Every structure is written in C-alpha cells, then in structure tokens.
C-alpha cells in the first residue's frame, strides 16, 4: 500500500473519531493501532481554554506591562516566609554594595583605573548604603503590616524578620565589600 493510501485511511478513522463515533477497524493493523491511540485524543483541550479560564480566575496574571510581569513573578516564585525575607534582605545588601560590584566590573573591563573606581566607591558608598537602609525599612514595614495585630506578636515578628533579613543583608553587603577590597579598589 502506498504511503498516501495509509495516510488517507488513518485520516478517515480520525475523522470518524472526531465526529464522536467509534471507528471501525480498517484491517490495516498499523492504522488501527494509531486510530485507537487517537481515541484518547478526542476532546483534547481547545487552544486558549486554559489561558481564558486562568485569566478569569486570577485576572492580574494576564495583565500586560509591569504589573502583569510582577503578578506572574509573584505567582511563579514560591518562597516560604523565611526564604523570602532572606532573599529580600540579600537584595538590599546587594543594593548597598552595588557601587562596589559595579566599580569592580568597570575596572575589570578596563573602562576605569583602580584609583578612579576607588574614589567613586568612597564618594558613593554612603548614598548606596543609606538607600539600602530605606529599602530594608520599607521591606520590614510591609512584612509587619501583613502580620496582623497584637503588640507581643508584632514585636516578636519584627525581631525575627529583622534578624533573618538583616543577616542576609550583612552577608551580601560584606561580600561586595570584600570583593572590592580583594581587587584593591577600596
């Protein structure tokens, strides 16, 4: 049998299956095996149905632009509370040491001398450090705002959150400083 004839036979069986009837065996065992497999594909989800239903359930996720991107990121990243705090604290530490990391990269690429980068870090480090402290304060404010009421609970939570986020902050910031010192920039 030619390939075309086999393709036609299978297509006829699939046509029967799609129309909701059970196919009758064609006598060609290869075609019949594929047709039986095709029975399991009847009702394959229509393209777009999953996305439409998801958009209806959780509208923010389908939004375009920055808000949609942030919503998708939030939905995709499942940190537990402690890990989330550590990552956020580490992020603030990285912000504090951004001038050290940035300066090191610029120096390594040969865009500026070690002396120029050192002067840059010395001038800008206090500003980056202050900015990171503001970021940490905002972070802790939002974390504690979600914690509910009760002075004892709030104090305990503030202590724990500050310890986790602060430790991560300290480690990352120290690493960025160590990097620039190791490179002889600061």
């Amino acid at each position, binding site marked *: 049998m030619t390939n075309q004839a086999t*393709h036609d036979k299978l*297509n006829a069986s699939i046509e029967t299956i*799609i129309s909701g009837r059970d196919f009758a065996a064609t006598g060609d065992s290869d075609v019949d095996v594929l047709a039986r497999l095709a029975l399991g*594909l*009847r009702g394959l989800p229509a393209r777009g149905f999953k996305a439409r239903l998801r958009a209806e359930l959780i509208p923010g996720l389908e939004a375009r632009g920055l808000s949609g991107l942030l*919503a998708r990121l939030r*939905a995709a990243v499942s940190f537990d509370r402690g890990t989330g705090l550590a990552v956020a604290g580490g992020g603030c530490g990285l912000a504090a040491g951004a001038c050290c990391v940035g300066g090191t990269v610029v120096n390594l690429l040969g865009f500026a001398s070690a002396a120029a980068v050192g002067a840059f870090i010395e001038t800008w480090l206090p500003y980056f450090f202050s900015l990171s402290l503001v970021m940490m304060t905002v972070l802790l404010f939002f974390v504690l705002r979600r914690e509910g009421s009760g002075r004892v609970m709030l104090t305990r939570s503030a202590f724990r959150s500050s310890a986790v986020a602060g430790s991560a902050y300290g480690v990352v910031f120290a690493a960025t400083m160590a990097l620039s010192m190791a490179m002889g920039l600061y």
Partner: protein
Amino acid sequence: MLDAKQLEAEQRLVQFSQRDPSRFAQLYDRYFDRIYSFALTRTSNRAAAEDVTADTFRQAFENLPRFQWRGVPFSAWLFRIAANAAADYYQRSSREQVVPDIQVESDASWENRLIEVETRTHLFDLVKRLPNDQRRVIQMRFGEELSISEVARAMGRSEGAVKSLQHRAMETLRARVGDSHD
C-alpha cells in the same frame, strides 16, 4: 502518587495560595490537565468538560481559604469538587433534556477512572512535546476539530502534506507512549 517530600511542598504551596490568591495559578497549572481529563471521562463531551472544569476551579478558588490540609494530596479535594460539578452539570442538563444519570461509583470504578484520567493526561502532555508542526496539526484536528482542508489552509500546505504530518505525529505519539510504558 506523591512522596512525603512532594506532599510537604504541596502543603506549602496550598498555604501560600491561601494567603496570596495569585499563587493559586501554580495549583491551577499543575492540576488543569488532570481535572479537564477527569471532566472529559465523566461527560464524554468537550463543552461539558469545559463547563465542569471551569466550575471546579471557580469553586476551588472561592473555597480555598476554608480548605484544611489533612495530609492527602490537594488533587483529592479537587477531584471531589469535580465529581460534584459533573453531577450538578447533569442535573442542570436533565432539566432541559433527557440525559443518562451519573451512577454512584464504587471504589473500584473510581480507581479505573483515575487510571483513565492519568492515561489521558499523559497523552495530552505528550502532544505538547511533539515537534512544532506535528503538534499544530494534532491541536487543530483534535483541539479545534478542524477538517483537513481547514488545517491545510491555516498552515499553508497541501492536504496531502497535512495528512502525512498527522500520520507522523501519531507515529511519534505511539513511540513515546511505548517509551513511557517501558
């Protein structure tokens, strides 16, 4: 079947979703195919399966804050909602026309149904992994229920070429189903 570690991860995900509804998207993505397949085995009808799937996830989303973790997979709760949604669907439909009653199922038939659901979910998953052209043909034929000539027009190919692609796609699926059973 989930092992203890996976069960623990799922419990965490459910708890996150209870606190932050946008996280429900992960549970939705994880279980959509299975719930849809379950609805399809219950109803044998695409439109009904879509209705039942939508009802299931709407109810799950609304009732998630009241969900209490009891150490069994989240999917067990979803399947129960889906079974009720399918029964409701038939009740609603039977007011408009005569439809066969859904039988109360024994544990054995539940087990068979779940095996059927897993088989179908696996097959749907294999379709997503087909080479691009083959996947498009299968999606248009079975998902959108287009005829060969409509698929050929949409892909800018001859009907013969589409039939050949369709055949190749089914051969690929057969090989991969075989591989996963080995």
